[in-house]
């Protein structure tokens, strides 16, 4: 049997692996990849909706992570937060390339509708989303839906407007108020 000890994917371990990556430790990089790639691939695939693009973006993101592991500042973000942000940025940049724009068909939109309930259920059970959940619960359903859809699928205001069948100005206003309320709520929770 292999002798490598089992790897708990907790944040401390990920932080240790990242700091070893910064020193050029390839084995640490491999373990980091094993521990996080499934979560990060799910993030990329949701936004890009195409397997080949998501694979490319995941590779680019990990290349970025390898080269910038020394920039990772543990005091500013949890390792997975930092890595998720890199993957999302890559994915959103990828969609921004003009030739990559594609129209979101009705079929895709109905998939979002179908699965969003189950994603909200999973969110409600996620240990690291307890505070965020409590604050999302205080929003109106449409605001909650809009913020989560924007995050999960990387939607722009115009796409949200189309999906929710609301004028774009309304969507922007809901979004602005929704985000402000979440921020206020989270800061309130942390202050207690």
């Amino acid at each position, binding site marked *: 049997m292999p002798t490598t000890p089992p790897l708990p994917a907790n944040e401390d371990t990920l932080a240790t692996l990242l700091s070893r990556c910064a020193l050029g430790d390839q084995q640490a990089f491999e373990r980091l990849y094993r521990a996080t790639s499934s979560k990060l691939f799910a993030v990329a695939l949701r936004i890009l909706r195409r397997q080949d693009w998501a694979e490319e973006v995941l590779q680019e993101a990990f*290349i970025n992570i390898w080269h910038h592991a020394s920039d990772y500042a543990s005091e500013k973000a949890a390792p997975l*937060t930092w890595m998720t942000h890199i993957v999302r940025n890559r994915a959103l940049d990828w969609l921004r390339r003009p030739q990559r724009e594609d129209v979101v068909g009705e079929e895709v939109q109905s998939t979002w509708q179908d699965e969003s309930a189950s994603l909200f259920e999973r969110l409600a059970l996620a240990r690291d989303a307890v505070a965020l959940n409590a604050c999302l619960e205080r929003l109106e359903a449409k605001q909650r839906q809009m913020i989560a859809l924007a*995050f999960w699928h990387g939607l722009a205001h115009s796409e949200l407007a189309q999906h929710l069948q609301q004028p774009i100005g309304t969507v922007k206003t809901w979004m602005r108020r929704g985000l402000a309320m979440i921020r206020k709520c989270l800061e309130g929770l942390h202050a207690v």
Partner: protein
Amino acid sequence: MRYNDPELQRRLAGEYVLGTLKGRARARFERLLRRDSGLRDEVAVWQEQLMPLASALPPIAPPTRVWRNLQTRLGMRAATRFSLAFWRNLGLISSTAVAALALYIAIAPLHAPGPAYVAVIADAQAKPAWIVSTRDTTLTIKALTPRALAANQSLELWLLPEGGKPVSLGLMPLAGSKTALLPAPVRGQFAHAQAVAVSVEPVGGSPTGQPTGPVVYQGALIVS
């Protein structure tokens, strides 16, 4: 736009992290970000606050080629098919799986004319999910806990002979157990394999005879 307005900074940072800031506005914001540490702090706060949304997404294992390509692109050690490096990952199988395997071997009947093989396949949480075992001419796959899968997908089990192509061992049961006959050529391959893997395939299994979807589970194969 006046970017030095704290309210506006906070709002744009939120929309940047959420992803709704798009196109030229996003590029402009990123330029500002590089030279404004206050704005970077604002982004960091939003990241910590909004990123838990990602924990709602069910993990999806990327295909093994992503890792191989990464190794190649970063000039890391030679990325050979089913390399030692890849299978070192099997070390991630939890000690629970190893313990389950040991227990299974201990209680399995000792009668076995030819070599019998057994593998415990762990799930993404490193919990034992299936036990695969062979005995004489039969293969048994037992699901330890029921699994859910999309209606248009099947899970296919593969034997991974060293230096050879994966050999299909049939579809995985999502609950209960199944027993199938092992053709002689397939039986012969077990002696050269140290692992099995499970890939996601279209309903009914891979149309090509080789894995086409992502490898989602794997397990070490040992002689019992």
